[in-house]
């Protein structure tokens, strides 16, 4: 039964991928390419590219993509359901514990140590993306700098901090300006694979 095996496969992805996006990729690969042969390795690589280029978590994107290709819309639905079901239970339980014992001294202290760590994690994620924008993920050198990307970033950062512009508006403007600027300065335009 194809629906059931799609569901089970993505249930495992949802249950064992801790730490988000990139942690899920090897798990999805082993289920989808290795165990079941639903996608070839090059199709899987395309899927990862698309998942990164489009909104949404990689696990949900993969579940929809694989489900659709294997068993149409119902396939997409069962695969996605499988991948979010473990979260629903585990996260609800944690939420319950958090709100019940939040006022406890020890938990207060644990949470107050976690907060600076979380800020650091977010900072690291932001700087990694900035690295992709400014140097295409390569070592930061002057000649490798993508000045179009840097200018877009600097402009966006400025209007966000100084004028508190709506972040989604800022992002959409960056997309539109990106298209115009990369067409004007094709030297900085992103290269497209496959």
């Amino acid at each position: 039964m194809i629906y059931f095996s799609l569901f089970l496969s993505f249930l495992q992805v949802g249950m064992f991928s801790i730490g988000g996006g990139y942690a899920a990729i090897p798990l999805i690969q082993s289920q989808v390419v290795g165990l079941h042969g639903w996608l070839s390795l090059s199709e899987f690589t395309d899927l990862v590219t698309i998942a990164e280029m489009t909104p949404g978590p990689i696990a949900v994107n993969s579940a929809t993509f694989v489900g659709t290709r294997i068993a149409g819309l119902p396939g997409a639905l069962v695969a996605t359901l499988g991948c979010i079901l473990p979260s629903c239970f585990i996260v609800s339980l944690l939420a319950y514990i958090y709100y019940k014992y939040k006022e406890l001294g020890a938990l207060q202290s644990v949470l107050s140590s976690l907060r600076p760590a979380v800020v650091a994690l977010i900072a690291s994620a932001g700087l990694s993306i900035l690295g992709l924008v400014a140097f295409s993920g390569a070592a930061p050198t002057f000649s490798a700098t993508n000045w179009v990307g840097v200018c877009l970033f600097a402009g966006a950062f400025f209007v966000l901090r100084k004028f508190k512009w709506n972040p989604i508006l800022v992002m959409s403007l960056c997309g539109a300006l990106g298209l115009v600027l990369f067409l004007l300065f094709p030297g900085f335009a992103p290269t497209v694979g496959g």
Partner: protein
Amino acid sequence: MQKDTHGLSKAALLRSLFFSMLYISTFTFGGGFVIITFMKRKFVDELHWIDEDEILDLTALAQSSPGAIAVNAAILVGWRVAGFAGMLVAIVGTILPPMTILYIISFFYAAFASNPYVAMVLKGMQAGVAAVILDVVFSLGGKVFKEKSILNLAIMALAFCAVFFFNVNVIYIILAAALTGLVRALVLQRRKKL
């Protein structure tokens, strides 16, 4: 666990939650931390449903649970704002946009992945995403500096170095920060007794 949400009726609250998540999820490219920064702007700064400390706690919970961070964060915010119904509404709002987009793309993915204009727009949006994340980091990091706790500043610096320069698994970082908080609680308790 629900608090006053500006006298909105339950239906109005759920509707607002659903459309907020739908809107955020549609425009959230990249990993889980990206969606959390957008959620912070929406639910903390704009709607004032959640306070700043709490969003960091929820981030730590979302990060340490299995599954996609975006879905986990939606579950937590949903519970927090409107209980079980809130959780369901927030999940559906979060997964609907990526599911729709991937469902469509799965039919002509090769053309999409190799289109240079699509790549230009996405690269521009990437610059915007980096700016949005780092803007939120400045606000949250500033708060940690204001606490004037040397321990918390050290946690922030160490966590950043560990993840950014040494690629340490974020789970270990969260565990280490939590442990530090626990030890601090025990030490303070002992001091009180003496």
